[in-house]
């Protein structure tokens, strides 16, 4: 009897002790953060997302080899002997075109092993952690800043050089050379007939491209990235909130914008942050409607006598003249204009190779105003844009 | 029609309908739940007769107690699924003959009796009256019932401990 009363008292006592503790916490402060409004300050070493400073990348493939889950995919093309690719920030000479530098963040396990072997420290983890997406494909980040045309061009060059080397060999052993040449033909890296005459279409409209907003993921005010094109037309393209949230990989996919400036299409995260208000909605090169890839012809026109065959080509492949892939994500009404640049597909402009070699960087600035068709604000870009997500 | 009359017919139908369902249902659990409606209907009829205490007792004892006991019995004693438990009708012919006769007799009585119609009068203090009756006039039956229940409880306890002992 006494025992059970004692036990009962113990029970009540322990319950009241517990309730005392919880009521103290009831009146105590909260330890949580109201997340989207308040954010925790991440330590500077926090590992949240991989980033590649492509300017410093020498294409050594060490990071891809260090990755335990193979989420990094690098493809390089040998630069010609006469081409100077510049140096990295720590002074090593770059010898390879990085035609493909893809990191699949959906696969990445954030182990940080890839960052240690990098000789130029160009791959590293950054603190950005809010990049979840509904589509797994959007977690594949592309860092190469070469346009498809440029890639095709450098590949063609590499192929020709390789072929020349082969020919030299072939002179020595003809049968052997024939076989070797076939093999090199079938390699994907040497697509014949790359359209090289096209770059520069965006550059040609410096005065008009006052703002190519919209490609950002919805809210213009948050577009953090700026495609390289902005750099090439400083002071004129007042605000080009770029393709996506500072993801350099997206910059590539605005062919019209970045085309003319291979190498310059650096992602400048946060650069465009304040800009969207100015983004007036003039698309870069074409109307954004496939089939009306007018900017391409005009761009080509400025390369007199050289790219003659291109207008017809671009028009002939309407389905493939696609505008910015990332812009497909933009919410109509917010992303007001879509830089709907057309692009002629490599392989079609067969007449061009060799002739337009000097174009990137050159004859672009002369594009007449008529090439800048105005994009209707609020219009959604064509659906098939997504397919154009090549690099 | 008056609301009370309407309610009376509604609850009568509920009672009879669910009773019929209960009798003819093959599934014993369904039958048990149908019994619940019957009991509730009866309770509502008690209310309409101003027997509020009886009505509440009806719910408390039959619905809250006995019916749950039945359900418990059904669910706990058969260790398989209750689906496997089916009611079976036997001796259908003799029973229907007898029941038809009984029903005919009852209907005859129902039709031939002249039912007195009285003014509705709400009785005052049903519990007080009940309490007085139970503790004065019917004290002996009341006590005997109590003893009977006590015996039942002791018996149940004994049976339960025996089963436990055997295990």
């Amino acid at each position, binding site marked *: 009897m006494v025992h059970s009363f004692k*036990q009962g008292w*113990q*029970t009540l006592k*322990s*319950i009241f*002790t*517990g309730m005392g*503790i*919880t009521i103290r*916490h009831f009146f105590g402060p909260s*330890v949580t953060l109201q997340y989207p409004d308040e954010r925790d300050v*991440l*330590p500077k*070493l*926090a*590992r949240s997302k991989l980033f590649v400073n492509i300017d410093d990348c020498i294409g050594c493939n060490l990071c891809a*080899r*260090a990755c*335990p889950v193979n989420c990094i995919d690098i493809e390089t093309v040998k630069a010609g002997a006469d081409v100077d690719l510049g140096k990295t920030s720590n002074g090593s000479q770059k010898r390879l075109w990085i035609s493909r530098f893809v990191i699949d963040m959906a696969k990445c*396990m*954030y*182990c*940080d*092993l890839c960052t*240690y072997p990098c000789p130029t420290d160009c791959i590293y*983890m950054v603190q950005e952690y809010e990049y979840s997406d509904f589509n797994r494909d959007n977690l594949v980040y592309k860092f190469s800043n070469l346009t498809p045309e440029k890639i095709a061009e450098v590949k063609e060059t590499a192929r020709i050089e390789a072929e020349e080397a082969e020919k030299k060999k072939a002179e020595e052993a003809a049968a052997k050379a024939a076989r070797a040449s076939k093999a090199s033909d079938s390699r994907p890296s040497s697509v014949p007939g790359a359209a090289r005459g096209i770059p520069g279409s965006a550059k040609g409209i410096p005065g008009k491209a006052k703002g190519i907003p919209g490609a950002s993921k919805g809210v213009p005010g948050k577009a953090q990235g700026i495609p390289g094109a902005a750099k090439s037309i400083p002071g004129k393209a007042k605000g080009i909130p770029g393709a996506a949230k500072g993801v350099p990989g997206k910059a590539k996919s605005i062919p019209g914008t970045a085309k003319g400036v291979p190498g310059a299409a650096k992602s400048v995260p946060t650069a465009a942050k304040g800009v969207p208000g100015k983004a007036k909605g003039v698309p870069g090169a074409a109307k954004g409607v496939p089939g009306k890839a007018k900017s391409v012809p005009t761009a080509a026109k400025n390369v007199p006598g050289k790219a003659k065959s291109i207008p017809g080509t671009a028009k002939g492949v309407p389905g493939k003249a696609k505008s910015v892939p990332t812009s497909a994500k933009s919410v109509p009404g917010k992303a007001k204009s879509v830089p709907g640049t057309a692009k002629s597909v490599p392989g079609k402009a067969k007449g061009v190779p060799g002739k337009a070699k000097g174009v990137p960087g050159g004859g672009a600035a002369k594009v007449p105003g008529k090439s800048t068709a105005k994009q209707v604000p609020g219009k959604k870009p064509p659906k098939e844009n997504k397919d154009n997500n090549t690099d | 029609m008056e609301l009370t009359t309407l309610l009376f017919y509604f609850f009568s139908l509920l009672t009879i309908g669910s009773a019929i369902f209960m009798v003819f249902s093959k599934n*014993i659990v369904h039958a048990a739940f149908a019994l619940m409606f019957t009991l509730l209907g009866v309770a509502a009829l008690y209310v309409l007769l101003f027997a509020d205490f009886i009505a509440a007792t009806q719910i408390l004892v039959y619905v809250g107690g006995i019916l749950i006991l039945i359900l418990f019995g059904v669910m*706990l004693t*058969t*260790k*398989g699924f209750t*689906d*496997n*438990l*089916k*009611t*079976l*009708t*036997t001796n259908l012919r003799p029973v229907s003959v007898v029941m038809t006769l009984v029903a005919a007799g009852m209907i005859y009585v129902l039709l031939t009796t002249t039912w007195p119609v009285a003014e509705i009068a709400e009785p005052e203090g049903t519990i007080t009256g009940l309490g007085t009756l139970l503790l004065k006039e019917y004290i002996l039956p009341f006590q005997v019932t109590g003893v009977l229940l006590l015996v039942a409880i002791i018996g149940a306890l004994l049976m339960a401990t025996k089963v436990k002992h055997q295990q």
Partner: protein
Amino acid sequence: MIEIVQKGKSRPEMVINMGPQHPSTHGVLRLEVTLDGELVTHVRPHIGYLHRCFEKYGESVGDYGMVTPFTDRMDYVSAMNQEHGYVIAMERLLDIEVPERVEYIRVIMAELQRIASHLLAVGTFGLDLGAFTPFLYVFTEREKILDIFEKSSGARLLYNYMCIGGLMRDVDDDFKKDTEEFVRTFRPKITELQNLLTYNSIFIKRTAHIGVLPPKVALNYAASGPVLRGSGVKWDLRKNNPYSIYDRFDFDIPVGEGEVGTLGDCWDRYIVRVLEMEESCKIIEQALEAMPDEGDVQQNVPKRVRTKPGEIYARTETPRGELGYYIISDTSAKPYRIKARAPSFVNLSLLPAISRGSLMSDLVAIVGSIDIVLGEVDR
């Protein structure tokens, strides 16, 4: 009249599947429970829902250093301890001497991780028994530890912080201060937990005399960690077979004593974890005091791991028990064979033995008190 219709084989028992999506199986464990009423007559754990081929991966992934992040993923609740075991195994295989500072940092990290892991274990144990609030209180403390980890390693859960021969990077500048601060504020929280949960009489009722694991059975099943110590067996590799620099510290090994119930019941396993957190605090304090302030954590890290044919078995004490790595090496860059002896897996095998005859609700308590991590069980 009532007729009982026999449909096929009628069994007096009810078989239910607890899991793989059940709130209290701590992951994707599936328990096939045979019930007689609410009495458990038999339990069969079905595992493998989280199998990620750790061992096979380790043999194919590239080189020895690339295995470390996968060890994190075995017992993701105590990743530091998993790494610690692996790097110790590799260092013994390669005969690498580890700098003093690295050893101290590793021990501090491992002990912090032990506290974090035990906090999770006691929190979820309470959660299984219906006490939601202590779970969040201990999580607040766990977050502080994760903050310390994040500052130094950059990650909050899967660190990949230790590497063969050293550490991936040096600790944060505030590391010492943060850790001291944590230990100082953590001790009162243990007291609070004791008052709120441990000595709550309902909690005691739910855990005392439940799932009793006699010492002999525990040893026969090769149980380890708090499950073994809960049965009163004083066995802790940090003391019995010291690795790293654990022989330099002064700490006790708490064992279950059957304070409120039978020796080896759920409460004993629980209290061992709580007391171990205090011991870990002691170790951390001593280590912080003795830790050299300067030193390159990478100085003995081999540029390339070159192995000779050989084999090694190294075992360490993780929060869940004895974690052993058995590695066979050849001259290639990849391990020939890696086998991990996972304590959760071994401890889980106890479940049928100690849960027979208990109630359904006790089964939940027993699973919680064994504290398994399915990542480690399935590997």
